[in-house]
């Protein structure tokens, strides 16, 4: 009996010893090392339109900080490329809104930091300059230039941050015509995107039977006095003045229009925003039309933001920079998330062609916290599906009158 007990005890000890031995790894496991991938931004960070360039840089910094904490789709910290985790480090270059410096910035970021993706530059002249060298350097370019010409250049490493604005000219012209407006004066920035939109609007509006007695194209980064332009417009007695620029110059141009006694209505692109609201006041713009999107509305009316993406970014931005972001931040944030997710889908942070090829899927998944959600990316680099809408300002509030200013996919391809 005692012998049997000793036998069972020995067996139990041996079994336990085997179990303990099996439960311990033969060598202590090391956690996978988190690597760093550098991510480039080339944009204007000084000079008269620095606030717009800083909108791009800060959006990328904030988006990558979020990705480093929560991942692209909220499933853990950093980028997950295969089995490897990556932290994103932003490296930037101030091009001063000068195409030559944009090119220098691209070279520097690629040659010194080995980046494979660069967001920016801002503005079509700088974007076109960067697009001349990005394929040769082997880097994806994601400039902020809403021109319709860039998509036609056949750049295989090109990603446009937003749809070319000139394609909104037709729906805007129709909306203005439908509201009974027959005479429109236009003041536009000379950038390819804005001037293209103004000329196309004029063309379409005149085809509908309307009149555009004055179209002024100015350099908004240098123009500080719109009094005489507005005096000239006022003399034409227009139904509306279409101000095709960024938010800050819009505020200045409108204030000067009022100062010379213009009491009519305006029409604005979706860049119109907090600066105009603050400087002019929506109550002074009753009846004016605003091309807008989720950002415009959710920023102003957080209750409408059911997903909370816009509200979240605004809160974070306020905490980080104590300001309201420039409109340039919006597409830049979305593009940063898309490109980061494309790296994960492509399974590489070094092959720009594979990353670019994965961009459509990154959008089609619909998992990214985008501010103006696009649903696809076309072969020519245009994001698709994030249609803007049209609001009228009434009683000091934005009211949506055209839900989607739809542009057919065939027009953009």
């Amino acid at each position, binding site marked *: 009996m005692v012998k049997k007990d000793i036998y069972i005890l020995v067996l139990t000890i041996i079994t336990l010893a085997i179990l303990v031995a099996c439960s311990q790894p033969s060598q202590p496991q090391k956690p996978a090392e988190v690597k760093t991938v550098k991510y480039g931004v080339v944009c204007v960070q*000084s000079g008269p339109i*620095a*606030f717009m360039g800083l909108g791009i840089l800060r959006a990328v910094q904030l988006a990558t900080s979020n990705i480093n904490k929560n991942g692209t789709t909220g499933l853990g910290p950093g980028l997950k490329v295969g089995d490897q985790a990556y932290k994103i480090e932003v490296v930037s270059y101030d091009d001063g809104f000068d195409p030559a410096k944009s090119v220098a910035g691209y070279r520097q970021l690629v040659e010194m930091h080995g980046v494979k993706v660069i967001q920016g530059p801002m503005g079509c002249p700088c974007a076109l300059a960067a697009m001349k060298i990005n394929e040769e350097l082997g880097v994806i370019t994601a400039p902020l230039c809403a021109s319709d010409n860039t998509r036609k250049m056949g750049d295989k490493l090109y990603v446009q941050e937003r749809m070319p604005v000139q394609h909104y000219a037709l729906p805007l012209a129709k909306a203005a015509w439908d509201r009974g407006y027959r005479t429109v004066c236009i003041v536009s920035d000379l950038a390819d995107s804005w001037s293209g939109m103004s000329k196309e609007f004029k063309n379409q509006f005149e085809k509908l039977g309307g009149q555009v007695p004055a179209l002024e194209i100015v350099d908004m980064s240098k123009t500080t006095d719109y009094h*005489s*332009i507005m005096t000239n417009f006022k003399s034409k007695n227009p139904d509306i003045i279409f101000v095709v620029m960024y938010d800050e*110059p819009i505020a200045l141009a409108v204030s000067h229009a009022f*100062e*010379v006694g213009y009491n009519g209505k305006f029409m604005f692109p979706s860049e119109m925003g907090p600066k105009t609201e603050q400087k002019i006041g929506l109550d002074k713009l009753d009846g004016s039309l605003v091309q807008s999107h989720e950002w415009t509305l959710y920023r102003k009316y957080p209750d409408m933001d059911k997903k909370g993406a816009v509200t979240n970014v605004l809160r974070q931005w306020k905490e980080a920079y104590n300001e309201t972001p420039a409109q340039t931040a919006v597409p830049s944030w979305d593009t940063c998330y898309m490109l980061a997710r494309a790296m994960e889908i492509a399974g590489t942070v070094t092959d720009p062609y594979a990353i670019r090829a994965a961009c459509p899927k990154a959008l089609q998944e619909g998992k990214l916290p985008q501010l103006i959600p696009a649903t696809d990316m076309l072969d020519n680099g245009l994001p698709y599906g994030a249609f803007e809408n049209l609001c009228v300002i009434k009683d000091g509030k934005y009211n949506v009158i055209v839900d989607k200013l739809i542009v057919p996919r065939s027009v953009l391809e």
Partner: protein
Amino acid sequence: MPPISINDTGDRVFVVAELGQYLVNGISQGCLYCLLASGLTLMLGILGVPNFAHGSLYMLGAYIAFYVVMLLNVSYLMSILLAAVILAVLGLVIYRFLFYPMRDAPHANLFVAAIALLMILEGAALLWFGGETKWLILPYSNDIITFGGMSLGVQRLIIILATLMVMLGLELFIKKTAVGAALEATAQNREGAMLCGIKVTQIAAMAFAIGTALAGVAGALIAPAVMILPSMGLGPLLVAFSAVIVGGLGSIPGAVLGAFILALVESLTSGYISATYSLVFVFVAMILMLLIRPRGLFGKEL
């Protein structure tokens, strides 16, 4: 130009009002150029080189007004005075530590120093104030006065009245005081002034301080009417320089006249021809005037 043959009284009133509006626009803009050009020409007379950083000092005046009113909750009038005083002190510092030590250096060195100062001040403003535009919004910012079919923002009216007062004060100071006379004498002939016993160094420092104070006043006056940005001074500076050249180097009355002529050219061509090319017309006007009077309107013998 506006049509000359007019069919009915209504059209005539309208065309006259439109022309009047362009003139009002030009006069209000001319006031700013006038303040800038007066300071520039004063410094030019003393130093012999244009102070390229003058536009940056104007920009600092605007920022001072913005922060004093928006953060310290001080009255706007006080902010203009503060901008003038702070910029005058800054002008003295710049003169003492930059231009005075270089007083015997070749003019090219002073040119480069002035350009370097412009870059430093713009960069510092970007660092301190940020790249985001600032708006100085006052209770009457959107108020407008209408008269005879023309309109004028209240701030523009303030600019016109303030410029009138400042320029009258400057004129009285120069013409009616001994220091003012010494200032004018030094501007006209530095060596001659020294021989007459005028303390040229002190007078030059004062001229610099007055010039920078004028830039500060101009910046503070325009602050509620524009976007405040680190680079806001460059555009007005170009026209102000042209006004100094049109008026004749070193002549304050010439700078004032030049400023208004060029501002009116800018306003009228913007309205009647194209705003895109208005600065081109300004510089064409400058060249034409120099072809007619190479020394400028009130220029000294070359």
